[in-house]
């Protein structure tokens, strides 16, 4: 087996389980934990499952099947595959490369934040449970007092965030070393390509399920868990009439499955050709959605617990105020008879009661405080963990789970960068794959240093909102068009027949030819329209804001807006550019090189056959 001299044999998965675990790990990411439950909650609980599952069946599964089939049949990474189908759409692979790189850069920053919290979870008490003292040591830090210790720890001690995206601040050294650790961990898993990734996913893809189960059992025993679950799953059928719900369901499925990154194409190209990719696609898609639903149960139990704790704390505060004011005996008013006393005192001594200005304690309002994204993980969840007995254990488990979820998704991103780079033949032959991976990780780390600035969080949100959205939709559209119209439905059906032993049935054909492209187009147009309607804004943490601790809504300055446009356009600009280049090249060169679909094509014999052809002619 040639190592450095001559063409390398394509790497292979050790067994099917590795392949499936890698694909599932790529699809199942942090978004399943912190985005889906939030959507479920704001869109009427159980009712949201209907548009979600419909989107999965008609949009998610066809796209997934398409990518896995194309990769497995053509046995190349995302650049090679599209070049093979038709050089005109070769730009799609380059677009995948750029998007995978940009997404990988900011996604690993989120993992760096998770690592920071993980490192800080080994303290007693947890550092986000109390406020630090101010300089005079008489009182707590002012910013912390006005907001909460958890908010303070996230915004000030972790991010040291500036009040505005234009104020860059300085590099946060704690965050830099966490970022370096995150990239080193990614590197060690990717050091031998899929040989090491395949081993790593045994842990990173299965561990989250273990932790979710542990959390499920723990969370269901917490007081208030049932309130949270009821709130989550009570269906509000009215929301189904809101088109925004369907749009968000389609968008969520699309981004959740991690299609259009090119990683899935690469992963399936390492399979043997006769592999039932139809079953794999359905399996990965269903497991991804099932994980989202499964994860929302402990998340919402814990949110219910948090709301109940806050509710009881609010009532305790009021009870103390009432007991002190009316000089009742201690513990006369308890949580149980609070409502009775409240009514009685309100009616008997109305003026005195009003003068106390008690806080309104409303459980439903507390449950409604829905958060997604970093807010859920680093603010809401960390606050809930403080009230749970054995906080350190739960915090450590939670952050390790988040890290594994994110790490397995990072594998797909890195693969989406490395495989195309190898195929574009931009790198010299003598570079071993370990060195290439190291260089990629190093470059990504250096670019990600932007996110370790004090304004880094704002930039992560810019990247998250714009790189990880519009370009992917465009790429997916071109992927479907490329396969169905450039390769042809008939050829593709033959491909699938060769691989799985039967042709795709009418459902798949209908989806690929009509339904999925239509859905994607609608989602894309609606997405762009919704974004274009309002000038984009961001939420800034400004201690000098008069409504602090609420975040201040600010407009993006013009230069940031220009960068946003660049981020949306640069990844996909390669598609028309390459198409144009190929068309012009085809014009000027009469002879067209035949598309050799033969996977056993051996370069050594090309000259021979041409000579034979000329000899025969």
């Amino acid at each position: 087996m040639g190592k450095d001299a001559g063409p390398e044999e394509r790497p292979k998965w050790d067994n099917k389980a590795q392949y499936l675990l890698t694909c599932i790990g790529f699809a199942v990411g942090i978004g399943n934990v912190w985005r889906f439950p939030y959507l479920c909650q704001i869109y009427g609980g159980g009712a949201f499952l209907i548009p979600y599952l419909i989107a999965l069946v008609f949009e998610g599964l066809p796209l997934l099947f398409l990518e896995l089939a194309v990769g497995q049949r053509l046995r190349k990474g995302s650049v090679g595959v599209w070049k093979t189908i038709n050089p005109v759409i070769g730009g799609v692979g380059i677009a995948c490369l750029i998007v995978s790189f940009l997404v990988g850069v900011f996604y690993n920053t989120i993992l760096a934040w998770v690592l920071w919290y993980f490192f800080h979870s080994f303290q007693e008490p947890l550092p986000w449970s109390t406020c630090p003292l101010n300089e005079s040591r008489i009182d707590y830090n002012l910013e912390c007092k006005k907001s909460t210790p958890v908010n303070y720890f996230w915004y000030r001690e972790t991010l040291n965030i500036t009040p505005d995206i234009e104020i860059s601040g300085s590099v946060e050294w704690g965050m830099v070393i966490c970022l370096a650790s995150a990239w080193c961990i990614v590197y060690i898993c990717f050091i031998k390509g899929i040989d090491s990734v395949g081993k790593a996913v045994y842990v990173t893809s299965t561990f989250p399920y273990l932790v979710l189960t542990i959390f499920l059992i723990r969370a269901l025993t917490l007081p208030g868990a049932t309130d949270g679950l009821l709130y989550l799953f009570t269906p509000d059928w009215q929301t189904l009439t809101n088109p925004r719900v369907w749009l968000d369901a389609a968008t969520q499925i699309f981004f959740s499955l991690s299609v259009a990154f090119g990683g899935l194409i690469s992963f399936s190209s390492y399979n043997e050709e006769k592999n039932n990719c139809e079953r794999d696609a359905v399996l990965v898609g269903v497991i991804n959605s099932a994980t989202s639903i499964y994860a929302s149960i402990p998340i919402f139990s814990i949110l219910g617990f948090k709301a109940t704790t806050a509710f009881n704390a609010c009532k305790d505060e009021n009870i103390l105020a009432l007991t002190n004011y009316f000089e009742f005996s201690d513990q006369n008013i308890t949580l149980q008879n609070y409502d009775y006393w409240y009514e009685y005192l309100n009616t008997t001594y109305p003026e005195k009661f009003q003068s106390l200005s008690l806080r309104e304690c409303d459980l439903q309002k507390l449950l409604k405080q829905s958060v997604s994204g970093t807010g859920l993980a680093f603010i809401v969840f960390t606050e809930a963990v403080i009230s749970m007995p054995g906080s350190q254990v739960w915090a450590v488990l939670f952050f390790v789970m988040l890290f594994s979820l994110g790490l397995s998704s990072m594998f797909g991103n890195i693969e989406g960068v490395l495989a195309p780079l190898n195929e574009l033949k931009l790198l010299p032959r003598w570079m071993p794959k370990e060195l290439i991976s190291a260089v990629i990780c190093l470059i990504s780390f250096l670019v990600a240093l932007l996110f370790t600035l004090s304004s880094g969080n704002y930039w992560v949100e810019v990247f998250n909102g714009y790189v990880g959205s519009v370009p992917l939709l465009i790429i997916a559209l071109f992927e479907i068009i490329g396969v169905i119209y450039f390769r042809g439905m008939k050829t593709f059906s033959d491909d699938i027949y060769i691989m799985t032993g039967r042709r795709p049935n009418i459902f798949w054909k209908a989806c690929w030819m009509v339904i999925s492209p239509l859905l994607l187009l609608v989602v894309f147009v609606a997405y762009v329209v919704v974004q274009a309607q309002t000038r984009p804004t961001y939420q800034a943490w400004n201690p000098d804001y008069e409504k602090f601790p609420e975040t201040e809504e600010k407009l993006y300055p013009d230069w940031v807006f220009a960068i946003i446009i660049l981020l949306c356009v640069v990844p996909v600009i390669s598609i028309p550019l390459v198409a144009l280049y190929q068309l012009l090249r085809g014009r000027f060169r009469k002879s067209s090189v035949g598309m050799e679909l033969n996977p056993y094509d051996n370069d050594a014999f090309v000259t021979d056959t041409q000579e034979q052809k000329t000899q025969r002619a």
Partner: protein
Amino acid sequence: MLEKILLLLSLSLSVAEGLCKPGVGEAYKVRFSIKTALGDQAYPWNKNEMFLFRAALAFAMRDFTNGEEFGVSDIHPCNETQRVSFWFVVTRPNTMDLVDKGTVEMAIKKSRNRINGAFLLTDKTLEFDGIYPTLAAPVSPDTPPWLIVFGVVMGAVSVGIIALLVYPLVQRKLKKNMDADDEDSDEETGVKTAENGANDGIYNSTFSDDERFTQM
């Protein structure tokens, strides 16, 4: 003689009662939340507990003023409620002069833990209205614990990376040595040299699946 003493006592009592006026002057309000703190093991509030409070406060005053002989009779409570809250004033020993608020506050602050301990309560459940407990300084160890965890994780990862990079190189060197030994010893066995040659050659996949190409 007896009448004089009685007169003095009643006078002092009435004067003392006049001294302790809620919310005015040098009076402090104190609140006990015994049931909240102790639950089932709460003791009932009675005259004996009040005596203990006066004794504890007298001790605090003595401790702060370094020896001035405050007694139980120098602490004058009034306006006791069911809450268990009452006001009190402190007078200088053997006189009716009130001790100013500042001194009382500092004395209580100094001996807060002792007073709390006497009643099995905490800063929150034994409240002195207006005297805020000194906040516990947060524990700040010399090396932040998170750096230790970071060091452990990064150490393990670095060792892993170096091991994974160096191990194949070491293996290859060992194999080359073994191959060199083999070549020296098995020069006659042509098969082995062919194998060695094949190891360095190019793997030609065209010959792996003959049926596809030999159509003739």
